[in-house]
């Protein structure tokens, strides 16, 4: 029953009872979210993988490998966080990987032009944000699907990087403390990544902006009718995504110690998308989780690092990674169908049916 009728015969439930019932529902919800939530599932998978690799090879849990692992995880995590902003809207940013390639080059160019390293970094990040602004404006104002918009910018940016660098590998500008803080020292990238994940989570879950991102992704018309500035929210997400892309570029530049204009930004970006989606962010919008993206990044990093450690053929690695992502996505969608009560997915139905048959036959 939705509305208690005025001719209610039974006395209305006591407020304490109602409160107790609401608390019970809340507790149940929390428990269900924990049990069915993508974050927990993927975290369990991550832990299982880590245990497997540790048993397989003692090198996996060595301190030097933890450092290596952290450098695998950090960029994927930041890309994942960046993409969650746009994916939750139901959009995608393909260009962020190339922004990642461009930003450390910009710092070098500005440094060569006589600017201080720090000033160069700040201006470079502003330029990256401006690229996001352009992505957002084209997508929102000209109604171009973001997939197309950012497909265009990714090639354009690639051209800019190659033209400006003549395709020659160079060293990042600056060294010393700035370089150390910005990715140069061993654990700097992962600390940045975790800090960004925490801030991202707070922004996403605890602020009006984050709520509006989810709202716009879930029902754009409804959000617009409620007065949410849909266009502004979208543009801001593209700006944030690009800005984070620029930051990882600088971090990775200092970490690696050289800048390669031919770096495959698209693949980097797709790692981020994979981390986000494996973590439970819906490509269709309306559902995003920063924690999930962080855990997804850790799982992908563990997988990549673990395969290296146990010496799986590099070609086989790509195959296994591809299948792992595919498997995770299928599981994700099936679980999601079952969870949302929109009928169980065909795979889930199949499993239940097989389970049922086994139960009856035994």
């Amino acid at each position: 029953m939705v509305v208690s009728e005025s001719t209610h015969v039974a006395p209305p439930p006591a407020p304490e009872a109602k409160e107790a019932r609401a608390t019970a529902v809340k507790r149940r919800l929390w428990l269900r979210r924990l049990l069915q939530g993508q974050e927990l599932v993927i975290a369990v998978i991550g832990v299982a993988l880590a245990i497997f690799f540790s048993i397989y090879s003692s090198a996996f849990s060595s301190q030097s490998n933890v450092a290596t692992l952290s450098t695998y995880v950090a960029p994927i995590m930041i890309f994942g966080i960046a993409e969650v902003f746009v994916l939750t809207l139901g959009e995608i940013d393909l260009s962020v990987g190339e922004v990642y390639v461009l930003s450390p080059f910009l710092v070098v160019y500005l440094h060569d032009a006589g600017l201080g390293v720090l000033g160069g970094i700040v201006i470079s990040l502003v330029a990256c944000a401006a690229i996001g602004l352009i992505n957002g404006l084209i997508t929102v104002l000209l109604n171009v699907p973001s997939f197309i918009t950012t497909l265009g910018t990714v090639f354009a940016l690639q051209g800019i990087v190659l033209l400006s660098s003549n395709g020659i590998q160079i060293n990042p500008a600056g060294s010393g403390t700035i370089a150390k803080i910005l990715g140069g020292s061993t654990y700097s990238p992962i600390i940045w990544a975790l800090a960004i994940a925490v801030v991202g989570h707070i922004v996403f879950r605890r602020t009006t902006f984050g709520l509006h991102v989810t709202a716009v992704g879930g029902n754009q018309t409804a959000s617009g009718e409620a007065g949410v500035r849909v266009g502004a929210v979208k543009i801001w997400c593209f700006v944030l995504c690009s800005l984070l892309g620029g930051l990882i570029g600088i971090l990775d530049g200092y970490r690696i110690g050289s800048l390669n204009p031919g770096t495959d930004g698209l693949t980097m970006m797709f790692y981020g998308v994979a981390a986000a989606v494996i973590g439970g962010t819906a490509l269709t919008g309306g559902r995003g989780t920063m924690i999930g993206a962080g855990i997804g990044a850790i799982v992908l990093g563990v997988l990549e690092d673990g395969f290296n450690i146990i010496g799986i053929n590099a070609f086989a690695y790509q195959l296994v990674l591809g299948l792992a992502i595919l498997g995770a996505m299928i599981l994700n969608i099936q679980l999601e169908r079952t969870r949302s009560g929109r009928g169980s997915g065909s795979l889930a139905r199949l499993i239940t049916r097989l389970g049922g048959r086994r139960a009856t036959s035994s």
Partner: protein
Amino acid sequence: MNRPDLSKADQVSMDDKTDPPAAEDVLRVEGITKAFGPIKVLRGVDLHLAPGEVLGVVGSNGAGKSTLVKIITGYQPPDQGQLYVEGEPVDLHSVQDARSHGIETVFQDLALVDELSVYHNLFLNREVTSGGRFRFLNNRRMRADAMRYLEEIQVDIPSVDLPVEKLSGGQRQAIAVARATRREDVKILLLDEPLAAMGAKEAKLIIDLVKSLARNRGVSMLVIDHNYTHIFELCDRVNVVEQGRITLDKRTADTSLAELTEFMVSSYRQQVEGASA
């Protein structure tokens, strides 16, 4: 069946635009026209709405109902004509603008975000925040306020923490109506097919909610529907829109489902004859 009285007295005169807006009307619409290119959707609509009154607007598809709603809610400006809220002429440039004059809407697509909780939906874009510029959500306050408010208007749902997608159609509609009337200064609520695709039991709950809001909170309602049965269940008065004009204005107590149906059929017949002539 008696042929309905189609005398001129029933029909709203299109010539009385010089009448001063009645002070007691919470909303008065005068001479609204709207054209999209060569298509004249509204050709001079006049209507009025008393405080606490539930007015039904019916008409066939393409008669101009939706355009009329969009104009009253500030979604689109009219080409000509004037809106008066409580006797004051107003020009609505946006939905926000209409809202600032106390006009709220519940749209056909429910205007809820399925993925968000009930209380986040109730507070969407009117969130309770703390922390100044950073606008941190005060979820505890919103949750408590949502529970208190829903209890007050007797909307019973399992929990305000549930995402809206977990609720039934009737519950969702109730939440949409509740959200639209949450602010104390809401004077006019527009409902676009509030009972569409709803079972009898669910519909009854919405009907009770609408009537209770009109009676207890003095909210005036404008209900757009093409189901006449719903109009008779919900409304105090009914207006018929045909070809961009109001062609009938009667209290529901003074008319009947049969009469309204017959009126619609005969005016449709006239249109067909007029077109073929």
